């Protein structure tokens, strides 16, 4: 019972991180209809930047978080203005290929800069455990969960209360109507990429106390992020977070009760099977009439 409870907590924690990353991935798909494969880089960059800020500059984790978020917003903005803007009229295939190539360029550049050795970001949160019934939950997990939820709440407030957030949503629903209503669609595109990069960065930042910080961090999380987005339905925001939670729970359960060597395999196969039966996500079965 204690093990099950602990594994559920672990699953939810890692699932929230997948959910945050998947939210960024799905947001670009909703707004532009493209899959942004370079999204996995933002996870790596987020993790490395927070490591650098916390360890090298001795800034506490809580204060480092806004710095990293701002940095990632800037990164996404620059990327859109420099590269992705040029390919706005390209087909989905071309955009995917550009983002994949960009992803190799960025990850190998990171490898050249930071080196292949893994780094550990420990003692970020107090290492106490809180006992709830038979389950003793690490304080680490609670902090990560709370921070993730806080970011989601901020995002929700941004999208529902601010004018810019509303215009972003309209532009992603229907760009031509949005431009007729005076929304600068180019700016919303840049903002979309900035926000998605920030979401990936936050995911990387939150995963860094759990896993060791390596170059492969992004690519190891990338596929699970994609599967979370597919399970929730590409373009569905709530679905992405719920999909992330499902993937996280499946992964930890599979690792505990079936086989830790095959845990990734189980998640991937489950993802493909879900795609077979619910192509538009588990929340929506029919999208187009045929």
């Amino acid at each position, binding site marked *: 019972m204690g093990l099950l409870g602990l594994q559920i907590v672990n699953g939810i924690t890692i699932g929230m991180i997948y959910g945050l990353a998947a939210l960024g991935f799905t947001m670009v*798909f909703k707004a532009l209809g493209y899959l942004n494969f370079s999204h996995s880089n933002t996870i790596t960059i987020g993790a490395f930047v927070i490591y650098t800020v916390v360890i090298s500059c001795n800034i506490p984790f809580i204060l480092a978080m806004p710095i990293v978020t701002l940095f990632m917003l800037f990164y996404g903005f620059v990327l859109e203005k420099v590269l992705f803007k040029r390919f706005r009229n390209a087909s989905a295939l071309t955009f995917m290929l550009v983002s994949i190539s960009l992803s190799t*360029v960025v990850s190998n550049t990171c490898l050249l800069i930071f080196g292949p050795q893994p780094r550990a970001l420990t003692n970020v949160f107090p290492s106490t455990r809180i006992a709830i019934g038979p389950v003793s939950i690490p304080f680490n997990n609670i902090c990560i969960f709370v921070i993730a939820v806080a970011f989601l709440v901020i995002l929700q407030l941004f999208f529902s209360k601010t004018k810019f957030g509303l215009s972003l949503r309209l532009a992603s629903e229907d760009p031509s109507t949005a431009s007729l209503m005076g929304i600068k669609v180019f700016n919303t595109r840049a903002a979309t990429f900035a926000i998605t990069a920030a979401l990936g960065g936050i995911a990387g930042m939150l995963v860094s106390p759990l896993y060791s910080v390596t170059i492969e961090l992004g*690519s190891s999380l990338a596929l699970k992020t994609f599967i979370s987005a597919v399970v929730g339905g590409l373009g569905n925001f709530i679905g992405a977070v719920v999909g992330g939670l499902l993937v996280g729970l499946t992964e930890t359960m599979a690792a505990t009760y079936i086989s830790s060597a095959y845990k990734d395999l189980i998640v991937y*196969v489950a993802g493909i099977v879900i795609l077979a039966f619910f192509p538009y996500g588990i929340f929506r079965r029919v999208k187009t009439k045929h």
Partner: protein
Amino acid sequence: MNMIKKYGKYIVMVILLALVIYLSFNSYFVFVGINALINAIAVMGIVIISGYAKQLHLGQSAFMGIGAYTSAILMTKAGLNFWLTIPVAMVISGLFGWVLSIPTLKLKGGSYLALVTQTFGEIIYVLLLNMVWLTNGPFGISGIKAPTIGPIDFTGLQPYFFLCMAILIIVYIALKRIVKVKFGRFFISIRESEEAAQSIGINTRKYKMVAFVIATSIAGLAGVLYGPFIGYLSPEQFRWQPSLILVSMAIVGGLYSLEGGIIGAILLTFLPELLRSTDQLRMILYGVIVILTLAFLPDGIVSLFGKKPKEIKKMLSAQWDMLSDKTLRRKKKKIKAARMSGK
């Protein structure tokens, strides 16, 4: 003059062949050359599915891995002949491709296949790594012997080079036949517009699956050739990175033609060797080349062939205008001018 025009193609081919035979006495060239030929076979598969049917396929080296491991296991454990393992490996790779295509290709747009094939590459990696009883896990399979046919022994690099070249030519001719007949037309119609293809009664799902199965079984063939060449197989050789390199080759050469795939494979295999760069720099180089190709030559290097310098310049400047927003600015200027004159 007329003679040159008429037979120019054949003269170029003969010169190329002579050059290749001359170079084939250089063992370093032959080693890289075999690599390039095997890559070219696999890349042609990508051209069929991603170029002709426009479904992005990101797991080609996983299917190569299936082919290579099938052949190696059959040869080392069951003692089967190399030539017999070729059809077996192709069928098994194709079967995996068929199973994978059932849930994926019923969906429109190439996006889902990209996600699923990438995931599939990782699935195959985990399986190869953990099924130690069959694949020897991380230790890999070694001692794969080169094939013989009658008195000819393909153990040396040079004979193997010509074997690969012969197989490449056979595959090329076969695929050329496939894309020239009804199938190829159906693939192209799917590329241009899936809705339109459906409206004239083409079963798009079926033909997308056909394209994918062809692509994956060719990858199996390339994998079979890869085994005896390297002599050692490990799961790392068939992970995400080689798949990506194969796709890059297809794009740089030209995603929409088989010749483009071959040219891209040869170019991108030899280029990093010439620069003797490290692994990271090589991947960065690949990425930058691909982005530049997509930006300036969306149809790859083959689109330059048979064009005058003037036409090429025009093509490039049109692409540059599109990329640097000049067309947009010009439109704005025109609108402004129209308004001014209206007032």
